[in-house]
C-alpha cells in the first residue's frame, strides 16, 4: 500500500466534491478505480494535453482521491476509495437534515396553542367595538 505521503489531513467533503465536479476527473477516477495506471496511459484516454491531465491528477491527489506512486520516472495513480467516506456520510444525511430544518421552520411559523400565527401576513379584520 502506498504511503499517503502527499496527504496531510483528510480533505473533507467539500474538497472531494470540488475535485469530482469535473467530468474529466471523474473519468480519470473510473480508469484507476480498479487498477493502478501511469500518467501517460491515463492521458492517452483524453484529447487533452498531458499537462492538462497532470493538473487534473494533482487536484485529485490533493483531494485524497488518488494515490500517487513513483516508480523511476513514472508516476502511477490509483483510486482511494476511502476518500469518499465523508461524502457518503453527507449524502446519507442530506434528507434527514433537510427534514429537521423543515420541522424547525414549520414549528417556528406555527407555534402550538397560539391559534393563527400573528406574524403571518394575513390582514386582520378591524374590530371596532360599538357601544
Amino acid at each position: 500500500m502506498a504511503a499517503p505521503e502527499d496527504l496531510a489531513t483528510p480533505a473533507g467533503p467539500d474538497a472531494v466534491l470540488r475535485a469530482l465536479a469535473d467530468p474529466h476527473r471523474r473519468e480519470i477516477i473510473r480508469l484507476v478505480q480498479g487498477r493502478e495506471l501511469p500518467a501517460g496511459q491515463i492521458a492517452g484516454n483524453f484529447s487533452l494535453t498531458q499537462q492538462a491531465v497532470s493538473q487534473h491528477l494533482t487536484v485529485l491527489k490533493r483531494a485524497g482521491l488518488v494515490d500517487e506512486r513513483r516508480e523511476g520516472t513514472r508516476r502511477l495513480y490509483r483510486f482511494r476509495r476511502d476518500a469518499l467516506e465523508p461524502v457518503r456520510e453527507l449524502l446519507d444525511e442530506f434528507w434527514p437534515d433537510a427534514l429537521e430544518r423543515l420541522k424547525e421552520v414549520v414549528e417556528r411559523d406555527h407555534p402550538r396553542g397560539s391559534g393563527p400565527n400573528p406574524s403571518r401576513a394575513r390582514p386582520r379584520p378591524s374590530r371596532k367595538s360599538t357601544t
Partner: protein
Amino acid sequence: MSETTPTPTVVTASVRIAAPPGVVFPYFTSPVLITQWLAERADLDAQPGGVFSIDVRGNPARGTFIEVDPPHRVVFTWGIEGDAGLPPGSSFVEVVLEGDVDDTIVTLTHHGLPEAYRASHQEGWTEFLGVLAKVVPSSPLQG
C-alpha cells in the same frame, strides 16, 4: 468502519412536526415556503406534470411533479442539471404526510438513486461519483 455495510439505493428519512398535515403540506409545494427550508430559489407548479425546479445550495435540482395530493402525498422527480450521473428526472422523491393527533409525521423516500449508491459494490462507482459531484450541498457536517 461501514465499508462492508451495504448502503440502500432508497434513502428514507422521517420527522415528526408539531403541526397538522394541512399546515405542513404547502412547504413542499409553495415556492415561498420551500425556500425557507430546502432551497434558495424555487419554481414550482404543483400539479402532475408541473415543473419542480429548485436550487439546493447552488445545485440545480430539476424535475416534475408526478403526484400532488394535499395534504397527504406529493411525489416529484429529481435530478441535477448538468450531471450525467443523476440527470433531471432520473430519480424520484415521495413524500407522505401522516396526521397523528395534532402532529404530522413526514416520511420522505428518495427512490431510484443509481445502483452505484451501494458503497460496497465496486462496479457502481462510475455513477456514484456522478451523483456525488453535484447532489450534495456543501455544508459542514452536523455534530
